[in-house]
């Protein structure tokens, strides 16, 4: 027993030494990781958004905001920016397909709304005989589960096509590559992966465009020296990080003071943050990386008796309605929810042997004050967690499935 005790001590000592060694290794691998803790918050958040800022992609999305889209503006989910196309003649078929969909999760209202639209689009394509069935596996926000899901689909060997909505960018890359190796069409949408092996990658313009739209709106309505509170859901998700990386850069350049916080989309947290910020001084603007919880932010101003801020939210109904009820200067940026229809429609094109864009960039236009009332009227009777630009109003089952979740 003495011996095990001594062994234990050695393990402990080594472990303690390695904690130090481990930390220093981290620092040497990632120079930006080490100094962060010691810096003051503003500098720190700058460096953290610096990690996510990619000038080339920023410039590209800046251009894409004013690009012209191919296709009918009445069906924006089929529009795309002209670019390289993937030939799909090899997959042309008259037989109904068995589709395998690896979904990251339906754990937030945006994904729930999109998933409903997808289901209803699926029903239409099933009636038309394009798709026989769609097998769905939900990864519950877990990379490991989603990798297992994709491998299961590959192993079953009966998928005529894959649709993948990745849970995270880098971690899902190997699994998507394995799906591509089956030789079947692979459609990736929403978050991307670090490979271009997919038949098509469907996404709205992107996070930088969101950041640019929102920052320009705030800069237009605010003065240099004003304070903007940024409410962010969580760190580390690329589509969200890009939104803030672009917005923070533009706001800071315009001389606007920014304070950013992570809220987990919890309205209690949001309300506390705004209340504290108002207790410290005036807040002229609120920036959100997603509209979920926007109402709590507005209420915090009302409860404190402060003037309502200039605000950017999202096209979630709760925000649009709250905005309509009040005298507010606001903008509802859009991360086009209708993209959930596009993968299935792309499959229809593939079955017909039509080429599809290799990178299918969908339009992404914010809802401004002029369009707001129209957007609300078009979505009458929808729950607060519904997204105005869901793009399913022309589907035959509209509106029950979206109203009664």
């Amino acid at each position: 027993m003495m011996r095990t005790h001594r062994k234990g001590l050695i393990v402990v000592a080594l472990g303690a030494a390695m904690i130090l060694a481990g930390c220093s290794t981290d620092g040497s691998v990632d120079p930006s990781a080490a100094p962060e803790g010691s810096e003051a918050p503003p500098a720190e958040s700058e460096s953290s958004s610096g990690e996510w800022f990619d000038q080339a992609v920023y410039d590209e999305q800046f251009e894409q905001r004013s690009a012209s889209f191919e296709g009918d503006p009445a069906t924006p989910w089929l529009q795309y920016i002209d670019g390289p196309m993937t030939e799909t003649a090899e997959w042309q078929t008259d037989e109904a397909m068995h589709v395998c969909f690896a979904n990251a999760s339906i754990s937030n209202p945006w994904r729930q709304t999109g998933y409903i639209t997808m289901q209803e689009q699926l029903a239409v394509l099933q009636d038309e005989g394009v798709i026989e069935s769609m097998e769905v596996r939900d990864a519950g926000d877990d990379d490991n589960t989603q990798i297992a899901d994709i491998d299961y689909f590959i192993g079953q060997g009966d998928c005529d096509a894959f649709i993948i909505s990745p849970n995270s960018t880098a971690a899902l890359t190997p699994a998507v590559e394995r799906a591509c190796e089956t030789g079947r069409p692979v459609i990736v949408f929403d978050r991307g992966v670090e490979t271009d092996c997919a038949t098509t990658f469907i996404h709205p313009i992107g996070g930088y465009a969101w950041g640019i739209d929102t920052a320009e709106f705030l800069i237009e309505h605010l003065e240099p020296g004003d304070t903007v509170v940024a409410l962010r859901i969580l760190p580390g998700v690329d589509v969200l990080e890009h939104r803030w990386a672009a917005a923070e850069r533009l706001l800071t350049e315009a001389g606007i003071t920014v304070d950013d916080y992570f809220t987990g989309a919890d309205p209690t947290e949001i309300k506390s943050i705004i209340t504290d910020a108002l207790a410290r001084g005036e807040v002229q603007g609120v920036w959100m990386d997603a509209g979920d919880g926007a109402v709590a932010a507005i209420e915090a101003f009302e409860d404190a008796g402060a003037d309502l801020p200039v605000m950017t939210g999202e096209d979630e109904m709760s925000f649009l309605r709250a905005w309509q009820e009040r005298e507010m200067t606001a903008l509802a940026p859009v991360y086009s929810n209708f993209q959930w229809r596009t993968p299935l429609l792309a499959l229809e094109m593939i079955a017909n042997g039509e080429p599809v864009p290799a990178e299918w960039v969908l339009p992404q236009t914010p809802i401004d004050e002029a369009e707001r009332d129209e957007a609300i009227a078009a979505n009458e009777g929808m729950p607060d967690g519904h997204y105005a630009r869901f793009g399913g109003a022309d589907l035959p089952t509209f509106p029950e499935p979206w109203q009664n979740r």
Partner: protein
Amino acid sequence: MTAITQARPARRARLSTTAIVYIVLVGVIALSAVLVSAAGESFFTSSTLTSVLTLMSILGFVAIGQTLVIISGSLDLSVPYVVSTASIVGAGIMAQGAAGVVPGVLAALLVSAAIGAANGLIVTKLRVHGFIATLGVGLIISGWLGTSFQGSFGSAPPEFRLIGATLIAGVPLSTIIMLACAGLAALLLHRTRLGHHIYAVGGNAHVARLSGVRTQVPVVVSHILCSMLAGLAGLLLLARTSVGSPTIGSQGGYDLMSIAAVVLGGTLLAGGSGGVLGTIGGVAIFAVLDHVMGVLEVNPFFKDFVRGAVIIVAVALYAWRSLQRRPPRFHGKGTRT
């Protein structure tokens, strides 16, 4: 000596509990096969086997370690963050290429061991309840992870990724490693003095101390082993995902699920009784359930409900069984003598 005799009856009870776990597992598999074929799919395919075994392997590593800690009378809620830390440390060092694999694995395991040592020392020296000690350590690490890392970090070279991708006769290599670890843990528990001491301390620390067991050593060692196994899980996730991730551990919910698997496997949460074999059965039950609910496309929210219900029902049944059995034993003794 008292400690050893103390552990005996518990071990006899454990054997039968383990048997029940596997009977339940067979029942779950049979039911699953029926449900899946009713839905027009086939259950007994190689991809089902691979899928279930893959789902098992990560939770399996964590649950083996959790078994050791729980038998010793403690608890480990810090495992998800150890998993993430190991994946980050491993990926950071392996980013330099194949030469980084061995140092990366060693560093990840040693950092994990250090966290385990911290857990164990806080429990034994500061005399903080394992629940609180590991909750606290987990929170401390999660703050560090959340502040220092945004998104994925580092990378794993292709040589290392083979561990996650290799199948031997349809069985993932990761599962084989996990089962090997389970075997080693079982040997430790049943064939070494340290193992007996882990049972003794978990059963009754006071009696163990009186009978000459250094009560702190088994607790610290089981915490170190638990964290190292969680570290292995993190490394395996690194091999599967190819990048380190600060959230990979919490994504899987390995803290509560591993405790649930251990308890489902018949180990007493109070410590002193149970075993690794039962835990593997518990992990398998969860993996089969998860797989079947996936195939049947059960609403993901309903999955959580089923998991919760399974935990409550299973544990209530164990408890009910031991309650049923206890009175006759007392009566039997009374009448015979």
